[in-house]
């Protein structure tokens, strides 16, 4: 069972110590994160919840190496990423992280297979060598017969499945999902969550941001944020697996 992978013995994927993020909005500094601590171990499935303005998007951006904290430490897989420059952060994103967005964010002019390959392009990987694996990933998310379709020929659920395959192509340390089911109807939501759960069962670390309690119930651990800090943490001993 997945609980075993979340045991304290598992290596840390994320260790955040006392991070702060201050935005300068006009003259007024806004403290979006106020000294937050967070540790995520390998194989964990963590959901982040909270009202808007609670700082959860800011946290996700920092976790996703899209933004740097104003102060504090952030270790991703043992590397201090808090003070890396823009190019190194890009490399880290490309090699260590997989992103799933609410609005799928596929590239319109590319086919399904090419969309899956995009992260490889920026690692200067030889696309021909990885072609087989990309096709396998397409099969994994159930789109083997749609690999040469364009995103506009796919349904929302299918597009999100392409995005999941894309998030897996670089063998990431952690998958970050930002409201992955926010644009889907309940049936496809169940489908997509099913895939995410399967990935977690295979040992992948997943961090998911959501408004939806029922979505959050899939996670081992639900973090509720408020005013830039973690208000409370709930551990689901028996996650509801859809």
């Amino acid at each position: 069972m997945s609980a075993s992978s979340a045991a304290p013995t598992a290596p840390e994927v994320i260790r955040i110590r006392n991070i702060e993020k201050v935005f300068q909005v006009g003259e007024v500094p806004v403290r979006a994160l106020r000294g937050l601590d967070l540790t995520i171990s390998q194989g964990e499935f963590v959901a982040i919840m909270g009202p808007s303005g609670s700082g959860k998007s800011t946290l996700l951006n920092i976790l996703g190496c899209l933004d740097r904290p104003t102060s504090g430490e952030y270790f991703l897989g043992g590397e201090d990423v808090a003070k890396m420059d823009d190019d190194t952060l890009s490399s880290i994103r490309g090699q260590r992280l997989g992103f799933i967005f609410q609005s799928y964010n596929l590239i319109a002019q590319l086919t399904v297979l090419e969309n899956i390959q995009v992260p490889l392009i920026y690692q200067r990987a030889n696309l021909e060598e990885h072609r087989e694996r990309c096709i396998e990933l397409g099969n994994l998310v159930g789109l083997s017969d749609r690999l040469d379709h364009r995103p506009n020929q796919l349904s929302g659920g299918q597009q999100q499945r392409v995005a999941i395959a894309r998030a897996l192509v670089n063998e990431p340390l952690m998958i970050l999902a930002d409201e992955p089911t926010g644009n889907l109807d309940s049936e496809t939501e169940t489908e997509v969550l099913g895939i995410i759960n399967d990935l977690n069962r295979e040992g992948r670390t997943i961090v998911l941001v959501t408004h939806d309690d029922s979505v959050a119930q899939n996670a081992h651990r639900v973090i509720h944020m408020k005013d830039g800090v973690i208000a409370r943490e709930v551990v689901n001993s028996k996650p509801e697996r859809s």
Partner: protein
Amino acid sequence: MISSHFLNTVQLGIKSLLLHKLRSGLTMLGIIFGVCSVISMLAIGEGASFEAQERIKRLGSENIIVNSIKPPEDNIQTSSGKSFSVEYGITYKDVSRIQDTIPGIERVVPLRIIRDNIRFDRNQEAGQIIGTLPSYALVQNIDLIAGRFLTSTDERFQRNVCVITEDLVRKLFPYQDPLQSTVRVKDTYYEVVGVVDETGTAGQRPQMSDSQGKAVDNNIYIPLSTARSRFGELLIKSSSGSQSAERVELHRLIIRMENSAAVISGEKHIDHLFNHFHTKKDYELIVPLQLLREAEATKRMFNIILGSIAAISLLVGGIGIMNIMLATVTERTREIGVRRALGAKRRDIIVQFLIETIVLSIGGGLIGVALGIVVPLCVSYFTEMKTIITAWSVLLAFGISGLTGVIFGLYPASQAAKLDPIDALRQE
């Protein structure tokens, strides 16, 4: 590895452009027209200046040509209808003076040009009888087709021989071999010893100064001494009821100098000499080298003007590209954000957009080159204007189009790369 990555990026660029075919096509038009107009205008200009230069070169760039011209005040007198003679032009004394005093001269070739009818059997053609020395062949471009040119023996013995132009052969000898035949001028028969083809176009052939620009291709060349003894120096012309006589010793001198430096100094000396001994302005100096230099200067000027037009048209094309690319960057902000999130560095984004711009401009450049080659060919085909497409003009136009892509692509590409990935992702 890097090259396959580069190829992927180019492929991606082409795909992105194909997504909006009409827009990409319209964007390319500016470059297409720019490149096409540069190449075709340069080809037409090059053709025109080539023709001009060829014409001048045929005159001989190391030659100085002196023509006898009827002084303008005498023209007025002849129109009164009375019969009298005027005396003007180059004299044999001028020839010996030039030969004796001017440094750097290789040879001086004098010409007498008499217009009369040339007859063979029953055929008759109006033409020019040109009395000259054998060395004429050394200073002018003439191709000997059959027989020989005049020789010094012909000159010494005042032989009645002639060398005839090919055009005249065609008119006078439709069926016979002209060699060993004789042609008649006035009452004298001349044996045809050679046939020549004058390679110059009508404008540069020996013409009498009063031929009013009409090209006469019917020339026969006879020894100068023969011309002098058969025709004398007094030429009587009858026209519309009045008679006029002219006493002209020589109609033209072709002075071959040793080198082009001698041409420059020789021109001044000759002009000075003639000025001193001729009270009337009854001569003109033509210096092909000078004309050549003027033609070259004109061509340079022409090229500068063309270059500016080209620069402007490509600038306009480039601005068009920049405009579209800026719109594209705004439109694809989201895509930029996604790519950045998936590991693209700023550099990758710059390269991606720059390549799209370069594909546009080089694509336009290639089409422009194709059109630019076709247009001058059409111009030549339909108008008989000579056009020369030079390799350098094609390379220049194509290079500038590529450069336009880089220059006008840099700003939109850097705008794209400057976007913060978080903001870009948030963009709807």
